[in-house]
């Protein structure tokens, strides 16, 4: 029999501040050399499971633990965190938080330094580890000059130096652009194969993880394990849908087409997937499609003219960018990590001043207006929720902007309650924000801007770290707002989101605008895809694979059908 490296036996855990346990009677075995994926809705307890494995629970987070958890055959309660850290290497959700060294070399060497490894030996080990993640040319580089993807690689090398038995990743793909995300999964796969480590991945982006082989998927819902099976088997069930986890798009399409999935069709691996068996269904379903209604042309509401900007002299972050947004439009901004997407939005909101060029709102030059003046017209939800939150209670945080503007108490309460319901936060309204998971915090910041009802809303990665239910709720709400005439711009790394909700996409790479076109066209241009680290969706590839004549139309058909199905569902969800 294979060796068990992680054994949860009737394990429960309750955080001190919680009334109810977060993990409930967990039974779970993970075997040597396995690669396991943990999925589940936001706040279901995935990270908590991770903390139990690496020892942060109970050594750093306090709470009540019952049952047993063994790592490498030893009860974790009886170990200390140092002993555990020799067995479990963790790559945390937040790359900035865990990049502790000033340079790449130092950060990789951190664990070795703590072990008092002699410097000479250290140089060798660091060199090897950095080679494995292809960062050996960057050893003297400072942390501030790395992109998000590079930081993630360094974090990986940092845990590799210890020759751990288990590697634990908590949302390794969060905030990575599509191409870098793919690369990260390939890298994890390579390392696992080379070292025969056991790998546990916690991630929302199921389809992106399945880009490489996974042995088993564990589905967590509300602190319990609701499924523990092979990916092929799981995809043939309805469990993912029931727990609000986004299925791979091609699977969903096949299901919509009414094709019966079986395990031996290998649905989890797109390359092996026997899609031909569904060809007939797909073709039939496809022909049912209605042509799409073209959108209305509006008046220009926002215009950027030849904007350039640099954070520090000598290096331009934004290079001569111009584009305009029409009233009532919904536009995506996409592109590589570090391309300057967030910077552009900061320029629009007046957080930074362009070094040249001008910004027009409704034809009027607002380049010299203050942040406060612009904020009456343009609302912005920042990438990092912690940068916006200044109150301790959810209700107060969402109400803050209205209070400052002197809105009457009764109206504030009504508007805030409404917004909280839409964002799925109503049950938590009297909680302190500090007790929320990352995804929940992000929703609080979205709510705090939505409630102000600005003319234009800019959202920086609104769906990062969200589960499918909240993704749908937020996006459908934005669509509703959009129908009422609110203009919406959003930055995203989710190609399907771009196709599904926005007709137009503006693409950035290295500080330049490299495309401004219909979203579907952007994704049909190999050049742009490569330059901007984008990725074709699996729907498109499914159409190609099964020989459907017009793959673009197929994607459109899917989006339309999918939205109809979900609108029925989400109406119930909003009542919640």
């Amino acid at each position, binding site marked *: 029999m294979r060796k068990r490296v992680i054994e949860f036996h009737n394990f429960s855990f309750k955080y*001190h*501040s*919680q*009334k*109810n346990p977060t993990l409930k009677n967990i039974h779970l075995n993970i075997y040597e050399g396995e690669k396991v994926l943990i999925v589940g809705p936001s706040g279901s307890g995935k990270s908590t499971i991770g903390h139990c494995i690496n020892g942060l629970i109970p050594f750093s987070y306090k709470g009540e633990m019952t049952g047993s958890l063994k790592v490498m055959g030893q009860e974790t309660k009886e170990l200390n965190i140092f002993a555990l850290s020799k067995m479990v290497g963790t790559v945390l959700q937040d790359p900035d938080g865990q990049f502790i060294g000033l340079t790449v070399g130092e950060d990789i060497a951190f664990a070795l330094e703590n072990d008092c490894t002699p410097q000479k030996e250290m140089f060798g080990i660091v060199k090897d580890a950095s080679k494995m993640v292809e960062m050996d040319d960057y050893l003297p580089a400072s942390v501030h000059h790395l992109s998000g993807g590079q930081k993630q690689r360094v974090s990986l090398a940092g845990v590799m130096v210890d020759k751990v038995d288990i590697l634990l990743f908590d949302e390794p793909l969060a905030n990575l652009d599509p191409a870098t995300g793919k690369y990260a999964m390939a890298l994890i796969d390579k390392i696992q194969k080379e070292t025969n480590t056991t790998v546990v991945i916690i991630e929302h982006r199921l389809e992106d993880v399945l880009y490489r082989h996974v042995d088993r998927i564990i589905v967590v819902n509300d602190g319990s394990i609701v499924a523990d099976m092979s990916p092929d088997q799981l995809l043939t069930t309805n469990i993912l849908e029931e727990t609000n986890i986004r299925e791979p798009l091609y699977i969903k399409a096949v299901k919509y087409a009414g094709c019966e999935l079986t395990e031996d069709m290998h649905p989890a691996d797109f390359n092996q997937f026997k899609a031909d068996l569904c060809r007939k269904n797909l073709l039939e379903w496809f022909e049912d499609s209605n042509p799409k209604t073209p959108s209305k042309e509006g008046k220009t509401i926002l215009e950027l003219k030849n904007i350039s900007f640099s954070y520090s002299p000598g290096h331009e972050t934004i290079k001569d960018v111009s584009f305009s947004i029409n009233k009532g439009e919904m536009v995506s901004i996409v592109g590589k990590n570090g391309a300057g997407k967030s910077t552009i939005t900061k320029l629009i909101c007046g957080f930074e001043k362009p070094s040249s060029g001008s910004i027009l709102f409704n034809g009027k030059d607002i380049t010299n207006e203050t942040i406060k003046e612009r904020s009456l017209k343009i609302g912005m939800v920042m990438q990092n929720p912690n940068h916006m939150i200044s109150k*301790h*209670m959810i209700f107060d945080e969402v109400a803050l902007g209205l209070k400052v503007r002197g809105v009457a108490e009764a109206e504030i309460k009504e508007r805030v309650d409404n917004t909280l319901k839409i964002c799925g936060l109503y*049950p*938590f*309204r*009297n*909680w*302190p924000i*500090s*007790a929320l998971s990352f995804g929940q915090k992000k929703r609080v910041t979205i709510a705090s801007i939505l409630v102000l009802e600005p003319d234009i809303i800019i959202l920086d990665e609104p769906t990062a770290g969200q589960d499918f239910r909240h993704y749908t709720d937020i996006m459908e709400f934005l669509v509703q707002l959009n129908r009422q005439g609110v203009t919406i711009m959003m930055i995203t790394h989710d190609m399907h989101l771009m196709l599904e909700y926005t007709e137009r996409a503006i693409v950035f790479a290295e500080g330049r605008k490299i495309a401004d076109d219909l979203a579907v066209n952007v994704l049909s241009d190999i050049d742009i895809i490569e330059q901007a680290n984008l990725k074709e969706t699996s729907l498109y590839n499914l159409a190609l694979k099964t020989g459907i004549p017009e793959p673009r139309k197929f994607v459109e058909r899917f989006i339309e059908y999918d939205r109809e199905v979900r609108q029925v569902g989400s109406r119930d969800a909003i009542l919640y």
Partner: protein
Amino acid sequence: MKENNLSIKTIVAIGIGAAVFVILGRFASIPTGIPNSNIETTYAFLALMSIIFGPVAGGLIGLIGHALKDLIFYGSIWWSWVVVSLLVGFLIGLASKSIDIESGEFGTKKIITFNIVQVIVQAIGWFLVAPSLDILIYAEPANKVFLQGLVVGISNMVTVAVIGTLLLLLYAKTRVQKGSLDKE
């Protein structure tokens, strides 16, 4: 130094605290309208950190933060003031036990205690220590440095009283009670 008592958390708090001290000290002073005299929000932050993490952390945040700020932004260290930051951080930190902010309770009595402590501590620091060191190290005239100390001291006392107290109240509220969270 009894370094075994310095937990990882305290060390990180010193490091990050010092970084925040540097940035607040350089960028977050509030103009009062009187030229050349700004309200330093830094000391409100220092007081908060001292109360949360205790005297050793408070003192070292003051020392490291202030020395680095001077070095990085002004290219030289004004030792007399650095010593005061160290002292203020350390002495306010001595009150951390009796205030016990982690309990989540920060009522009127504790607010008064905190403010009495901070006023006494800053009086010692700004009215006595800073001017004396200025005279000792730089041989500056006594009446100049004592007046300077008086102005800076009073403005810092007010800042800590207002902003420091607000920050402590906010922090206390984030300390949730055991077993108190439930969905409604």
